[in-house]
């Protein structure tokens, strides 16, 4: 660039402006405004600054803390189930799909991705109907394999409802890890695989010793996607179990708790400031997760890339 004294390049601004304005006005400003709202409380219709008082209330006040810790714990379990079931199965399916000269691979891939495109409303209701003791599809199916006595109204029992919902979520989103890992497996250079075969490393041991270390960056990505998605979840539980996240709040996670707090439900009045407080806690959790991923995991994985 020889000419340093260029005229002002208005077009750069024109190109950037629409995206930056919409993004800033609708996303960034409200995000920070929400963080700010969490520091206030409305007394006699006037907003009063309470510092971290709302957080103290959320973590310690018996009216709030019970529900909060319950939602946080449930959310954590929801994430653990998703992480432990969805991602290994997704990786396994991707490994099978990418194996050499497998016929109908495209058909399998398309079919397994179908649940991911369905809306939560459909997914929640479909499973509610299938698992309903009234209809009897699930009991009949279990009966046909001689396990009728296994059946229980899983979504209605506080001990099993959360895990059942988490498994429904796994069913819905398994397509995402499958696709991303599949893409990563396809991008492994042919020479690497050939070199492994020359050394007699094939089949399962090839997967564990050659391919898996190479796709670790993608596993990192699906993990952080699962994390952000799970700690931001709401729809599936709202659809299948209602805003009260029944039975007896056993499926309540941070998203449903935020919704109830913000809007109020039945006898409870809506409270925007406490809603903002919960949103801020969710923001902090997601931020910590993203930072751990960016600085702790992704950086260390980089040396495996070609």
């Amino acid at each position, binding site marked *: 660039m020889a000419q340093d004294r260029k005229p002002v390049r208005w*077009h*750069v601004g024109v*190109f*950037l402006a*629409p*995206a*930056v304005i*919409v*993004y800033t006005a*609708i*996303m960034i*400003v*409200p*995000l920070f*405004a929400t963080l700010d*709202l969490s520091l206030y409380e409305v007394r006699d219709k006037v907003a009063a600054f309470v510092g971290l008082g709302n957080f103290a209330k959320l973590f310690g006040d018996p009216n709030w803390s019970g529900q909060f810790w319950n939602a946080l714990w449930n959310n954590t379990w929801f994430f653990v189930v998703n992480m432990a079931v969805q991602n290994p*199965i997704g990786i396994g*399916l991707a490994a*099978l799909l990418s*194996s050499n000269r*497998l016929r*109908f691979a495209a058909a*399998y891939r*398309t*079919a*397994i*991705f*179908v*649940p*991911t*495109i369905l*809306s939560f*409303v*459909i997914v929640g*209701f*479909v499973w509610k109907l299938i698992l309903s003791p009234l*209809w*009897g*599809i699930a009991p009949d199916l279990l009966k046909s394999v001689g396990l009728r006595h296994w059946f229980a109204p899983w979504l209605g029992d506080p001990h099993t409802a959360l895990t059942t919902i988490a498994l429904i979520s796994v069913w819905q989103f398994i397509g995402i890890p499958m*696709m*991303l890992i599949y893409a990563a497996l*396809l*991008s492994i250079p042919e020479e690497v695989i050939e070199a492994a075969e020359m050394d007699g490393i094939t*089949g399962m041991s090839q997967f564990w010793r050659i391919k898996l270390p190479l796709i670790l960056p993608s596993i990192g990505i699906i993990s*952080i996607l699962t994390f*952000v998605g799970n700690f*931001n979840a*709401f*729809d599936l539980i709202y*659809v299948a179990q209602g805003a009260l996240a029944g039975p007896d709040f056993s499926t309540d996670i941070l*998203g449903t708790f*935020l919704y109830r707090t*913000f*809007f109020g439900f039945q006898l409870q009045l809506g409270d925007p400031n406490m*809603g*903002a407080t919960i949103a*801020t806690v*969710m923001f902090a959790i*997601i*931020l910590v997760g993203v930072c751990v991923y960016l600085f702790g995991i992704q950086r260390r994985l980089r040396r495996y890339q070609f």
Partner: protein
Amino acid sequence: MSKRARTSHGRALAAHAILLIYTVIALFPVFVIVINSMKSRREIFRHPLSLPGPGSFDLVGFQTVLQQGNFPLYFWNSLVVTVVSLAFILLFGAMAAFALSEYRFRGNTLMGLYLALGIMIPIRLGTVAILKLMVAAGLTNTLFALILVYTAQGIPLAVFILSEFMKTVSDDLKNAGRIDGLSEYRIFFTLVLPLVRPAMATVAVFSMIPIWNDLWFPLILAPAESVKTVTLGAQMFLGQFVTNWNAVLASLTLAIVPVLVLYLVFSRQLIRGITSGAVK
């Protein structure tokens, strides 16, 4: 040698068996809903797994849905929101991506990072203030409020993917345009945009699914009957008709089929988008 061939044969067979079982698990729930939506109430309960036949075929569920629900309106609302948001996301996203990938200016990297922030941080967390903003602007219960939110939500990923692709557009082409006296705007619209069309299609498919399926923002920003999207409309309808199994199954089928058809049309684009490493 023959032993080896046999084990690889067996391995392929095992792979097919596992994939086939999982395909059944993925599709079975959808299949059950669709076949039962076309059966009489008695048959739904007596033989839930049998196909609709001469004795059991009944479209009473669909009749109820079409009489009681406002589904054509909901579909129209969803369509408007999705299409207009996508147009904004693609246009604004491509413009910003072009600015970031084409010009060197102070704060370029910082601007890129600023826009990328939204890929990881969900816009939902700002809901409390977004609702305040929309109330203040008088936009609650309008489709425009949803369009604004989805545009803001979609821009980060669009900028990220499109600027990667725009870096690959040859400089010679753009410089030839400049020598011919084309303005920067003409270069963008007539030279660069047509070349990144495949990437635009990928972004469109990726952005479309969450917009069409979203329940949170319609529920909070636009719950009125006249602006309900199909996702919210179906949710409300299902809540009211929860004991009318024919109607529930029929409305679920009506909600599944358009998405499924769209998916089958675009699935190659979607899968190519993911596997070409557009999302990394």
